[in-house]
């Protein structure tokens, strides 16, 4: 076949044209059927992968942020709880002291009132008793006087008795 080419007796240049046309047609068909869609798909895939990597990075950062916030909130709430507890403790302490003081004061007042009452009662009882004794004495005296007033010898006894009462009353 090389001899044909060299001698040129039946050189089929048409084939060159045929192959060029065929090749260009093939290129066009491949571009429409496969090359365009496939390279587009490959590009899409590459984009998707890079996007996925980016979004994974982003969500990882978000998660880390969230963890940090969580920890901060936890620490905050812990200290808050501590404050609340200590506040409650001091409040309780104060209240207890207040109650105890109040109770002591109350007791003091009650004691004083009781003492006053007792004194009052004693005074009343004493004065009552004095009156009773006076009445009784007068009754006894009247009875004795009614019955034995005649006997002068008994007069001295009565006197001394009354005198004794008066002394006792004075003391």
């Amino acid at each position, binding site marked *: *076949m*090389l*001899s*044909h*080419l060299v001698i040129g007796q*039946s*050189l*089929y*240049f*048409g*084939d*060159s*044209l*045929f*192959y*060029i046309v*065929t*090749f260009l*047609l*093939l*290129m066009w*068909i*491949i*571009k429409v*059927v*496969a*090359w365009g*869609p*496939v*390279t587009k*798909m*490959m590009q*899409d*895939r590459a984009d*998707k992968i890079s996007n996925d990597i980016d979004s994974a990075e982003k969500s990882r950062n978000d998660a880390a942020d969230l963890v940090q916030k969580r920890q901060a909130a936890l620490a905050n709430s812990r200290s808050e709880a501590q404050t609340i507890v200590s506040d409650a403790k001091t409040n309780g302490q104060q209240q207890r002291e207040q109650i105890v003081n109040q109770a002591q004061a109350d007791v003091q007042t009650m004691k004083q009132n009781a003492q006053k009452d007792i004194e009052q009662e004693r005074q009343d009882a004493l004065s009552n008793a004095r009156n009773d004794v006076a009445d009784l004495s007068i009754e006894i005296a009247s009875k004795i006087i009614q019955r034995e007033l005649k006997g002068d010898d008994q007069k001295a006894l009565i006197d001394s008795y009354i005198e004794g009462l008066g002394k006792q009353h004075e003391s």
Partner: protein
Amino acid sequence: MNGDPVSTFQFLGLTFSTANVVSGLVVFVLMVAVIFFTSRKLAMKPTKGQNFLEWLIDFTNGILKGSIPAGDVGKFGLWGFTLFLFLFLSNELGLFIQVATRGGATIVRSPTSDPLTTLTFSLMTMMIAQFAGVWKLGYKRHFTNYLKPFVFWLPISIFEEFTNFLTLGLRIFGVIFSGEMLLGVIWDLAASHGIATMIVAVPIEMAWQGFSAFLGAIQAFVFVTLSSVYISQKLEVEE
């Protein structure tokens, strides 16, 4: 095969070789079928056919990336892909199917076992290289590249273009043509003395077929690689 009659026909005042046209059409149909059936149901998660196609695209893009600057690879990707697949199928076609008329003229064989076919592709590469050079650098810088490293280099530069064109086309032709010719010779040997030679020759034929298939793939690869080298040479200003 060299002495075989060549079946030709006239069309539009041009002479066509029947073998080349028919073989070319066979390759064309094969290629369209392969591309069509592997590119159905494209998805983000590739399945069998798409995997193969994407692997092939990555492969040819890889060949181009080896020499063409990264920014320009995208413009030659489709060309490199089509060229590689066309040459590969052309190289392998004649190893498995050879049809001849009763007169002895072959109708179907490797299109690349004809120098005219391979030189056509070689010429296409050279044209693309020229156009790419003008497109990238502009007329002035493109043509002053021929005067580098010094003005008297011009004849050598022009001669180099011519030798590049010839070697690129004839290398692949030589390998494929000799492969087919040897297949024919081994077949003649097998048929020469009946069953005895047949038994001896068939393993040799199979081995040679396997080797030729390997060589066909290598040659398609080499053709695309060298083409991209020639193009890349035109894309940059020589120092």
